[in-house]
């Protein structure tokens, strides 16, 4: 339904519920704002957006006044101009606004308004020089002499990121005289340095410390890319001047993050300048790693691999693919293993395909942004606020707007205070705990009988299995108490649909994801507001699986054991005899190294020797260790050949986040030293082992190979990835992508499968 209004003498249409500001924006009429912050709903204080309307002598704030049918609004009258200018004049007089030396110069709402309104500081306001000092902060400069008290930072901290680190200071002036006013001072004990306040500060009061003096806004290239830190995959704008990163900001309104970043995404990009960066290829000569040319290093790797294959067969080579590198890198690595070396011994440790057996697709079911509107959320595992901070903001948003968080964590964490019901469980006991919940839900008859009957397999066996899982037994194994388990089970059954979230951490049990799948099938919650969300710790954990860096899956979740599929890949890759037998999982590699079954280990972007002492010991018996990484690691120090790889901001590519969203990663600076893109290195080795691959860029690899070979990605091409990316499955170029899987119980594998796990 559309209605009409008279805007500056012109009839324009608007949708009921729209504000004057929204209607004006839609009609192309500019109304200036300062405090308006769409994502939080914060508005209505600066009164810069005031307009005149027929029927009232007041000036109305356009940001918070809803348009009515036939309303007559004037946005740019003399009266409006005088009011706006008076506000700006007073603002200019009530702080120290020295634009010339300000980092916000050219990027400042107040400066823009002063310029547009030809304002000058009001003379009758008393000058003030009492500005509070901010605490010493590693990432943020707070200069309150420039603060205009618009409240946006408070809204960002309280309502968007939900950290409540900036206590709302407003209230009677008389009570604030001693403290010098209403400055939005952060509580260092609560601040998590997400920098959202800096993001939304319209003036120069809050700025990035590292960017101080680095570049002015008009001097930088702004490159839109995707964050490399965790599986949420937030959008970033990298501001680079002369090939150096000046700062990173969020992309307003973008998905999946809705314009948010966390401390990692915003401030932790120094690792690309680390002194530990691998700047040159290295080859081990007479026991010592020495700098080498790319040719020497690549030849060394290729010839040694060939030698070992010749002597011990292709299955004597094993590889571990990075869960942080781009899809195209992972694709080329598994292609090298399968098509050139001839083995399926390729794996990754991102572990994001754990729902494959239950539902038929190895991926989380729903979208992260959905969480903010969920009525109920069940979170289990590590501290989401620590591991996936931006996803955690969505959960906290849901609680803020009345949703209920039911949490099972490994101890008190930053999500605890938001939980309505909470259990503390032992790491690794997730399946036991969930079995206990399932047991209560079944024995008390609280499960969705129709859903289970119509959409699931294996229920009878599962019921028999969990009948042994009394709350008492689950309590004993998980450390939660039996009454809490009963209470949570009943609560889950009552408040459904429940969005289930799992945050795996080191030491989390293997059966957790499948157990959660069982639980959600009992609750029947598939579609919006439900599902099983697995939040990956690593940026491209999903992509590494999707690209076939797995012993049993080819790119696009296609089984190596399917002869027709294998044939398709044989043809596409110009080879014959791709191995049809699942390869060795990474978990078995250490044993095989010691047992002699594995002679060569190719490690890309991981540090198993640093993470696992037993692996380090086993690795010592390898004849060949190839290590490809951006930083020196324990593993690279043990390598025979080291291949320096480009970092996330140094090459083009794509990541796939925890919600199956394929997003572009873009080159913002030249690679450090001699580092080269990951996909290039694999291609070079393939060439030196006798195969010339046609694709000469990440773009070509995706468009010409990945999207052609994997039906799940058929409709995804680089052209379509310019904006917010696409969530697979996306079968054709007209398909918008799939925000939620298995809606209403229509599972990819036909019926959902109950899998008993301990």
């Amino acid at each position, binding site marked *: 339904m559309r209605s009409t209004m008279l805007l500056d003498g012109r009839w324009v249409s608007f949708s009921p519920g729209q504000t004057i500001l929204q209607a004006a924006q839609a009609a192309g009429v500019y109304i200036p704002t300062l405090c308006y912050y769409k994502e939080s709903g914060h508005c209505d*204080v600066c009164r810069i957006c005031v307009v005149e309307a027929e029927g009232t002598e007041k000036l109305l704030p356009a940001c918070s006044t809803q348009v009515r049918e036939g309303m007559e609004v004037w946005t740019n009258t003399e009266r409006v101009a005088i009011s706006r200018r008076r506000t700006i004049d007073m603002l200019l007089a009530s702080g120290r606004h020295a634009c010339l030396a300000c980092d916000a110069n050219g990027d400042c709402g107040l400066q823009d308004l002063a310029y547009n309104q030809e304002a000058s500081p009001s003379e*009758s306001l008393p000058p003030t020089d009492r500005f509070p000092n901010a605490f010493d902060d590693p990432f943020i400069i707070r200069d309150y002499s420039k603060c205009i008290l618009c409240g946006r930072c408070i809204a960002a901290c309280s309502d968007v990121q939900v950290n409540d680190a900036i206590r*709302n200071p407003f209230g009677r002036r008389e009570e604030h005289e001693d403290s010098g006013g209403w400055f939005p001072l952060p509580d260092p004990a609560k601040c998590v340095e997400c920098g959202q306040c800096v993001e939304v500060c319209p003036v120069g009061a809050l700025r990035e410390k590292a960017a101080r003096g680095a570049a002015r806004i008009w001097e930088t290239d702004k490159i839109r890319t995707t964050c490399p830190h965790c599986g949420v995959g937030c959008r970033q704008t990298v501001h680079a001047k002369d090939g150096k990163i000046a700062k990173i900001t969020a992309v307003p309104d973008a998905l999946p993050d809705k314009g948010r970043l966390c401390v990692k995404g915003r401030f932790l990009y120094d690792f690309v300048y680390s002194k530990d960066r691998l700047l040159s290829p290295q080859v081990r000569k007479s026991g010592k790693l020495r700098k080498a040319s790319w040719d020497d290093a690549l030849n060394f790797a290729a010839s040694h691999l060939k030698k070992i294959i010749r002597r011990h067969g292709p299955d004597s080579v094993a590889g571990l693919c990075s869960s942080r590198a781009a899809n195209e890198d992972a694709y080329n690595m598994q292609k090298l293993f399968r098509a050139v070396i001839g083995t399926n011994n390729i794996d990754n440790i991102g572990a994001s395909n754990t729902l494959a057996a239950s539902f038929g697709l190895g991926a989380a079911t729903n979208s992260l942004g959905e969480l903010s509107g969920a009525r109920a959320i069940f979170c289990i595992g590590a501290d989401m606020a620590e591991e996936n901070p931006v996803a955690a903001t969505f959960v906290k948003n849901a609680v803020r707007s009345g949703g209920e968080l039911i949490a099972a964590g490994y101890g008190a964490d930053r999500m605890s205070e938001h939980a309505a019901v909470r259990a503390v469980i032992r790491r690794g006991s997730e399946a036991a705990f969930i079995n206990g919940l399932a047991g209560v839900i079944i024995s008390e008859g609280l499960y969705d009988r129709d859903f289970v009957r119509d959409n699931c397999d294996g229920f009878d066996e599962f019921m028999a299995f969990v009948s042994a899982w009394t709350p008492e037994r689950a309590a004993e194994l998980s450390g939660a108490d039996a009454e809490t388990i009963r209470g949570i089970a009943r609560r889950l059954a009552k408040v459904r649909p429940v969005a289930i979230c799992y945050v795996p951490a080191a030491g989390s049990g293997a059966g957790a994801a499948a157990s959660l799948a069982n639980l959600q099938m009992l609750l029947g919650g598939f579609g919006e507001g439900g599902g099983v969300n697995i939040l990956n710790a690593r940026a491209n954990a999903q992509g590494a699986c999707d690209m076939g860096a797995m012993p049993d899956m080819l790119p696009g979740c296609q089984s190596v054991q399917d002869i027709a599929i294998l044939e398709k890949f044989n043809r596409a890759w110009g080879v014959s005899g791709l191995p049809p037998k699942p390869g060795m999982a990474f978990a078995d590699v250490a044993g095989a190294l010691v047992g002699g079954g594995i002679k060569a280990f190719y490690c890309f972007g991981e540090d198993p020797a640093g993470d696992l002492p037993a692996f380090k010991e086993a690795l010592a018996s390898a004849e060949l260790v190839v290590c490809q990484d951006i930083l020196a690691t324990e593993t690279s120090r043990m390598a025979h050949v080291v291949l320096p790889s480009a970092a996330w901001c140094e090459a083009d590519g794509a990541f796939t986040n925890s919600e199956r969203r394929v997003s572009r990663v873009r080159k913002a600076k030249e690679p450090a030293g001699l580092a080269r893109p990951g996909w290039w290195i694999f291609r070079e080795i393939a060439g030196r082992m006798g195969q010339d691959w046609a694709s000469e860029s990440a773009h070509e690899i995706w468009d010409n190979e990945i999207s052609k070979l994997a039906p799940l990605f058929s409709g995804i091409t680089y052209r379509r990835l310019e904006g917010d990316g696409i969530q697979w499955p996306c079968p054709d170029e007209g398909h918008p992508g799939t925000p939620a899987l298995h809606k209403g119980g229509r599972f990819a594998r036909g019926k959902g499968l109950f899998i008993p796990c301990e």
Partner: protein
Amino acid sequence: MTVFSTWGTDGPSGAGAPISFSQDMPIRALMGWSGLIISDESVDIVDMTREYAARARAESCGQCFPCRMGTEEMAEIMERICDGRGVMEDIDRLEAVAGYVHESSRCDIGLTSPHPILDAIYSFRDRFVEAIREAKPVPRGEYVCQVTAPCISACPTRVNIPGYVEKIRMRHWDEAIKIVRDTCCMPGTIGRVCVKDCEFKCKRGAIDEPIAIRHLKRVAADMELKAGGASVPEKPLKDEKAAIVGAGPAGLSCAYYLGLKGYRSTIFEALPEPGGMAAVGIPDYRLPRDILRGEAAMVEAVGAEIRYSVKVGEDITIPQMLEQGYRAVFIAAGAPNSSAMGCEGEDAGYRGYMPGVEFLRKVAFGEKPLSGRKILVIGGGNVAMDCVRSARRLGFTDVNLLYRRTEKEMPADPFEIADSKDEGVKFHTLVAPVKIHASGGRVTALECVRMILGRPDASGRRKPIPEEKSNFLMDCDAIVPAIGQSCEVDRFAPEGIGVNKNRTLAVDPVTMRSSVPYIFGGGDCVTGPSTLVAALAAGRRAARSIMDYLETGDSAPRPEDWLDKAVSSLSRPGHSDDAPFAVLTHRHHPPMTDPETRIHSFAEVEGCLSPAEAGQEAGRCLRCYRIAIAALR
């Protein structure tokens, strides 16, 4: 006599409503949210404008820019003029800034405070010109100030409602409850059972629905309990102590505010339980006893002692209290006796007949004072509703309420009426009792007569008149009259003390002092049966007078009392432009136990808004703060 007024006018230049304050009010001039009233021409309007601008500056909350910076600039200009540093352009500048603040601020502090300032400039520009020309300091006058709002003025305890509502919006729960307790010491109780006059005056109500002020108070109280309860500030105790008769809301409130200032008190309570009528008159399903006990404990924590089961007049007399060192006495004995119906047989002592107050008291102590299947309750007030709903919970299956007027005239809270009906209570209106029929000393039926409504009586309600020959019988097992309560203060108060016609204690309405200098009174024993919140207000007011008395030997109204009285008499006419084009919103409702479940127990029926709902509800508040200052004689 008003010599000049702009009150209630739109344009500052127009002639205002000729508000005149009564002779006993020593007000020379008043500046407020809707204009300027002058009774004494010699008042210095320039200095008074300075004071008003300074108050507006002090009250600005800093959120919206025009008010934050504009009130600062207005105050600065006036300060300059009154210091003798003004320039002629200041007058135009002040006018421009005031107009700017008035037309674009967010809440009434900014929207209304320029009003009297502009009135002063328009009407007395020559005096401003003169002050600037003389270029010397203007002598500073003395003023009293009150910051109020329609809701605050409607509340007997004058709780800063927009203040605590805003703290809830900001989720500053601790500060919210502190604001309530500043003037109302039983937030958990009042948050459950207040008659909420504030909500009827809420400006939001004229736009869509009033703010759920009572529910929000309850959320703040419950959040405090959840956080581990309130803490009591340490303070030195004084030697003087007061005696308080009755541990009802008035007595507890008086003791609390005495205690906050270090004055000790002893409360003598006839019942074995704190709360008075709030405990034994309001059933647990509306007000759980532990809430009341918790708030009484808070009163003890600030320094009061409560002696239970002590009947003043029998166990101890007021002269004995004086002998024991109490220097002042606060009588807050309530109105615990039932009024008679004037119905044949009500004094006969039949079994199955019991006055409502007695019935509720016994129920409150866990007894089941009446039994049977069918009960008749006579009355239309909240006590009658409490009786029918309690009867339902005691197992009466046929519960009937008889009222002599129509439902429209019932004094009970409309929600109470609706809740009673939900619980299956049958309403019979335009019916009055005539005679109780009994057999073997036990009631069997009530003879009633049908009524018709005649002309309005003194209460403004139409007077019910019996319809001739319309008598009929209603069978029943029990009859409970709940048509009013009374008290007998003269039974224990010293001889010769001023008593009203209805045997209530006569006190000064401002100081709460009786005709005996050391005796103060408040609550139902002064007003007759009234509201809980009125009793809390009376207790607090009495505490202040008692402290004055203990310190100076006298208690008299203070200047702010006159301003309060004047402000209460000034109602600003509603204005179409109060909230132009306001976004329509909906009030949040707390969860209620469904009727089928709740009639089986005395467990609390009404739930609490969730913190999220409370935050959203608080966000609906328009902050209708207004500022008034007065120059007194």
